[in-house]
């Protein structure tokens, strides 16, 4: 087996979250992070739809469709959690109160630009809270697949899709590696098991800066 599976990527991203952090989880892959919190830390999860202290997925049969996450899937609330309205929720985001946000992405560049709201074409665009998050969170991280289904790199030198934000992404988690956008390329932080540097370079649309 080569690389991390989806659960392992989310767990790897979770591992980087410090004790006491307030963390927003975006739609899609990042949602899994809520189920993979490292033991021994108090990390407070924020969901854009008005939840602080979001917990893991509920046990089967205990779902409540009025307690859902940004991806509209049922979640739970931890002791110490709170509910609030949308303007207050985005005051937290826009006001710089979120320590870390973890987003999904269509493309990320080595300058930290991110595209995740419009895939072009005639399908309806859907921005959600992503532009607020990249403008307001203190640190923006991304969980994404390394390439498209058809094998095109998603870590690139320049966006081909409409930008969500420019120069904002600080770290990327994929099935192949953990990488940081850096001047002129992506700096390698960690390779997934069974992945070597040439393999990573072939799958990436920009230089890999190793070491």
């Amino acid at each position, binding site marked *: 087996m080569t690389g991390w599976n989806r659960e392992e990527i989310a767990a790897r991203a979770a591992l980087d979250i410090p004790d006491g952090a307030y963390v927003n989880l975006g739609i899609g892959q990042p949602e899994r992070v809520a189920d993979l919190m490292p033991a021994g830390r108090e990390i407070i999860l924020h*969901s*854009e*739809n*008005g*939840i602080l202290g979001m917990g893991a997925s509920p046990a089967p049969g205990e779902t*409540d*469709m*009025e*307690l*859902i996450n940004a991806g*509209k899937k049922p979640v739970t*609330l931890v002791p110490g959690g709170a*509910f*609030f*309205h*949308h*303007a207050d*929720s*985005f005051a937290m*985001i*826009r006001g710089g109160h979120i320590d870390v946000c973890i987003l999904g992405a269509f493309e990320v560049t080595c300058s930290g630009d991110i595209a995740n709201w*419009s895939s072009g074409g*005639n*399908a*309806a*665009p*859907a*921005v*959600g*809270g*992503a*532009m*607020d998050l990249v*403008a*307001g969170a203190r640190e923006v991280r991304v969980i994404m697949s390394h390439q498209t289904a058809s094998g095109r790199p998603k870590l690139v030198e320049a966006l081909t899709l*409409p*930008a*969500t*934000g*420019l120069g904002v992404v600080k770290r990327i988690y994929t099935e192949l590696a953990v990488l940081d956008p850096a001047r002129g390329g992506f700096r390698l932080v960690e390779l997934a098991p069974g992945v070597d540097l040439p393999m990573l370079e072939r799958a990436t649309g920009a230089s890999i800066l190793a070491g």
Partner: protein
Amino acid sequence: MIDKRFRRALDALHDVPDGATILVSGFGEAGNPTELIHALIEQGARDLTVVNNNAGNGEIGLALLLKEQRVRKIVCSFPRGSHSHVFDELYRAGRIELELVPQGTLAERIRAAGAGIPAFYTPTGVGTEIARGKETRSFGGRDYLLETALSADFALIKAERADRWGNLLYNKAARNFAPVMAAAAKVTIVQARHVLEPGDLDPETIVTPSIFVDRIVHVPDPVRESDHLAALDKARPA
């Protein structure tokens, strides 16, 4: 005596004219005033502008209003969904106008309308297609966009508990847009699971004070959108 209760949803919606702008609460399935929207379908107003975070799911509530071709324009942040086929088809066919607004800007524009703020600056969307045609201005060395208040003729919202004066409590994440929408419309219409008397709600815990609410309809057992979607999935040809 102040009594904002209406016995039937249809009566509470009697004066919605064609061309009205309507704020509709809800995020995903949580907080959708489905029974009020169904009454609006029955009532007959058309050529509507609807503001909601999403663009409807399945063929119920907002999606059904869209399917009945009663909506000229939708203002939302995230129209895509696993069950947004009604919107998707109308959009692809060019039969509905979409104003896409970042979610925080959407919430803040509605909040501003309720608070008497005609416009504000926000960092959200700077340097993106969302900034097109908008004033950009620098404060303290950072660029911001000018965004304007988003007010409406009506707000349709869902609450957990209401009293006769219109004080409201919500349930969990079903709160979402309802409190800001209640304040931003000329006429705010609420469907509430429980309707009580003034004094029954703890004054420290009231989320929407009665001043923002005009009409209340008691809907003790609202439809569950997830049941509808599950039935829809089951009926779908394999």
